[in-house]
């Protein structure tokens, strides 16, 4: 088994809520609340969860695009949480991010050439000819043509823009790429192209991904392991086959059962959850899911379950599995 490239320990991101006459902090939104996991080199870790569960915030906090409130992030064994910004900047050539909306993340007034060569320049590729060559190379890699370099983002389709975003992320041969909903804005037929591309690139460049998405099928397709988040916490983390075939956490079960499948022959027992996700500013005490959980017990409203091993290298945060131990 390969070494973990990234280890996250007790990561938290709280946002203060201000109020009162003097604008004091009266509360906190616990966007990410005590999340721990690791990613091995060359692995794809999928993170799923519904909107507001903190998965995106977590992705950005790992790269310190948002400063985490608490916790430790180790990249290749080095704690990067306290790293000075200059060192962090250097480190970012190894850690990249791809965003959901490819259009919003590309400067509309720059050519593709400029967009892709900028990170090269920032990280010390001074020769213009060299940069040009590299840009051409990268465009080929992501399935575009060299002549696209002189065009502007608006001249591309959504899928092509995402390819540009990927090329930019790849520019400096990163080791880890955080993919924040990279295909959710794309059409089905284009989505499969990008997913295949990302898979190919992983194999070719030995990349490690943290793949954040809300679409369970997509996550399943691309990931090796999958973590499920609910209200800022990781509720289950397992190899994808284990997770999809035998979900342990009641939330994971409900989530999977709710996905409509394009096969009229599959008649599954759907678990319809009652109500909405509670507000992260005021999460329920104990297990955050107990208000909607069909199996909730007394203990669930009092004691918060920790993410603990449940055999076969899987982890679950649920009293159903830890109660009897």
């Amino acid at each position: 088994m390969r070494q973990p490239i990234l280890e996250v320990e007790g990561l938290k991101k709280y946002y203060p809520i201000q109020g009162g006459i003097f604008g004091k902090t009266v509360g906190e939104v616990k966007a990410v609340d005590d999340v721990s996991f690791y990613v091995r080199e060359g692995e794809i870790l999928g993170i799923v969860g519904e909107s507001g569960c903190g998965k995106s915030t977590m992705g950005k906090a790992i790269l310190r695009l948002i400063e985490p409130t608490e916790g430790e992030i180790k990249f290749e064994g080095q704690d990067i949480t306290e790293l000075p910004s200059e060192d962090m900047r250097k480190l970012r050539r190894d850690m990249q991010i791809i965003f959901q909306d490819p259009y919003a993340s590309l400067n509309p007034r720059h050519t593709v050439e400029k967009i892709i060569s900028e990170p090269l320049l920032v990280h010390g590729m001074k020769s213009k000819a060299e940069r040009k060559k590299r840009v051409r190379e990268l465009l080929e890699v992501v399935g575009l043509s060299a002549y696209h370099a002189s065009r502007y983002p608006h001249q591309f389709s959504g899928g092509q823009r995402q390819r540009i975003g990927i090329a930019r992320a790849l520019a400096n041969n990163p080791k880890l790429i955080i993919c924040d909903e990279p295909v959710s804005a794309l059409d089905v037929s284009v989505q499969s192209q990008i997913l295949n591309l990302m898979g190919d690139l992983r194999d070719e460049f030995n990349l490690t991904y943290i793949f954040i998405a809300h679409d369970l099928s997509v996550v399943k397709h691309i990931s090796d392991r999958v973590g499920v988040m609910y209200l800022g916490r990781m509720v289950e983390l397992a190899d994808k086959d284990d997770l999809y075939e035998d979900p342990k956490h009641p939330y994971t079960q409900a989530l999977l059962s709710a996905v409509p499948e394009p096969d009229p022959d599959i008649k599954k027992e759907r678990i319809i959850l009652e109500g909405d996700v509670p507000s992260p500013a005021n999460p329920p005490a104990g297990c955050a899911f107990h208000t909607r959980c069909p199996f909730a017990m007394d203990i669930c409203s009092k004691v918060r379950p920790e993410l603990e091993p449940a055999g076969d290298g899987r982890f679950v945060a649920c009293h159903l599995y830890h109660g009897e131990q």
Partner: protein
Amino acid sequence: MSEVILELKKLSTHFFTDQGEIPAVDQVSFRVHRGEVVGVVGESGSGKSVTSLSVLKLIPDPPGKIVSGSILYKGEDLAQATEKRMKNIRGNEISMIFQEPMTSLDPVFTIGNQMREAIRIHQKVSKKAANERAIEMLKLVGIPRAEDIINEYPHQLSGGMRQRVMIAMAMSSDPSLLIADEPTTALDVTIQAQILDLMKKINQEEQTSILLITHDLGVVADICDRVVVMYAGQVVEQGTTREILKDPQHPYTQGLIRSLPKLRGKEEKLYTIPGTVLRPKKDHVGCRFAPRCEFAFERCFKENPELYDLGEGRESRCFLHAEREGKRLEDATTNT
């Protein structure tokens, strides 16, 4: 088959833009029967949303315009109807709900205000009666604390709740047809399941026909009786849900289904349709899907294929059927 509620006949809606005339909806024909749920499936740019908006003539004009064809609602051609008549139809005979529940309700009026407005446009009832009706509808769509919610503003509700409100509002005048334009796309899966359930319930209990616009074949499988597949402004295939999903005839439909990542089983590599969705152009020559089609042959680039009737309401727009038919004919002749 029961009564036809809605029938589109060769409906064409074009947009007149600086870049020229765009046939966003091109000769689209399909039917919706009483009590039936019909899904219109397609990717962005396929014209499915424009089709649905055209039914209620809600296309912003300019730049959009229904250029030909008819929209027969219970036999009446809405394409020729006056604006006054359309006001009477909208929200009364045919209701519509939209993709973005977060932005589809007016943020500055209370839920009650907007619901009462919807009710009183079509029913001559007192404010009080309208209020009661609104509460009744909110309860029907499963909104807890309906009496309180009615005095709240949209931003105080979650996305799922807002979509329920939209549905309640749409259903308040007992429409014969509910057009739902991507009603669950912006929602989380668990909430999506709730809303789909609600729509099924409405369909079954009220016998309301539903025209569901979606890109999600999973949703289609879940709720629809029949499916219309659109590509680049045209219908490329239609049939029952089972037929379409289990035995797609058109190469596009086939590719679409194959390129979906599956929740079950294992797959190494996804099937991909090469290229990107074609932007519809006027005077397009040949099959619109031909540039991406792995079966395309010479004829596909020269002529636009017709919809081939494959029997029992099944249709597919592909020359392969002609080939097959021809072959079958050929076979038949050689056999005899």
